[in-house]
């Protein structure tokens, strides 16, 4: 029990042993909890994914005639050959991830889920999609195959001349 002398000499910043150990204990517990949270998040976030590679080999450029729009369902991209060159646009609707379809009779790309419609260039015509369909980088491999990188969208209107 603190006697009179101790109480008198108390400064505002003083705290006794009990308070010190309480602070120490709570502090360590918080650090432990924070550490657990971080490790927990890292555990839940997988480091290895068994998913197909985002680099797609689309075959020879000759397979895509002029003014064609080809949907590759397995990789979710369109490969298009226009007068300006080759380019690739995502086939996955930017609204909620449904696979779109090319409608040649209407000349548009349409999404079955909520009715979004896009031009060939990926620009949105109508519908609830918030963004135009992203463009993907297209290049020619050493073997002369068309390659598409689906991982990162690029600025639109960049064509590959072959």
């Amino acid at each position, binding site marked *: 029990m603190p006697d009179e002398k101790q109480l008198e000499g108390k400064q505002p910043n003083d705290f006794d042993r009990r308070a010190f150990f309480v602070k120490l204990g709570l502090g360590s517990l918080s650090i432990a909890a924070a550490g657990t949270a971080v490790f927990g*998040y890292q555990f*839940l*976030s*997988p480091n290895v*994914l*068994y*998913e197909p590679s985002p680099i797609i080999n689309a075959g020879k450029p000759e397979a895509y005639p002029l003014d064609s729009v080809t949907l590759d369902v397995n990789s979710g991209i369109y490969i298009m050959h226009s007068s300006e060159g080759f380019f690739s646009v995502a086939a996955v609707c930017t*609204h*909620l*991830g*449904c696979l779109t379809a090319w409608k040649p009779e209407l000349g548009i790309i349409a999404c079955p*889920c909520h009715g979004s419609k896009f031009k060939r260039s990926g620009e949105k015509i109508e519908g609830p999609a918030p963004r135009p369909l992203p463009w993907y980088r297209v290049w020619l491999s050493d073997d002369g195959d068309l390659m598409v990188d689906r991982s990162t969208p690029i600025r639109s209107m960049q064509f590959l001349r072959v």
Partner: protein
Amino acid sequence: MATAANYFDQLRKTRVWRSIFRSGTGASTLHRSLVIQQDVFLHLFPTKVRRRMLNVGVTWYLGTMTFGTFLILVSTGILLMLYYHPSVPQAYSDTKDLQFVVTSGLFLRNLHRWSAHAMVFLVFAHMFKVFYRGAYRPPREFNWVIGVILLLITLLLSYTGYLLPWDQLAYWAITVGSNIASAVPVVGDKVHFLLLGGNLVNANALLRFYVLHCMILPLTAIFFIAIHFWRIRKDGGLYAPPPAEPQRAKEGQ
């Protein structure tokens, strides 16, 4: 018959019986109260309830029936788990097996599916009935909040279970749903990645949804159901407007 009743009475006097059912048996109010009070599960309930509350017209027994569908879902769910492998594409074959090959498999799957729909419907109906009865008012506010949490758990259970058959219906419903999750500002994409265990709805997603649906969410539901029942008792039992003044019973709500 008389001898069977005698035999049962004799049974109840044995040491073994008395060791299991410590409070003894009998038809007195004391014994009947002890049945509730001495049982670890049943003592969530009070030993006495207001007679008026047991009329069908008061609560329509919606809460009871929601719990009933939950019990059906847990039992059919556990049985279905015995024939289901949460891998791709085996999950689909297993669902087909359950429907065509496993004895009573079709029945169990149907019962599980329709009970799930019934539970979602009943939980909404229960919420609206509690609201329109005014049974959310103090001191029962927190139990109402627990009820909202249970509503969310029910919807999550239904959503995670929806993916498990791995058919077209399941796959695209979950694709759209998880893309909505990525619409959450700031953390949306991370949440999407954690939920699916990847960027696409594939084997990782199926396994995570399976663990959520069969383990994490049911345990959470049981935890909150227990609190929900406990709070009914602690807040003074099922709510009914006081019967003393007829005009007060009619107005309001």
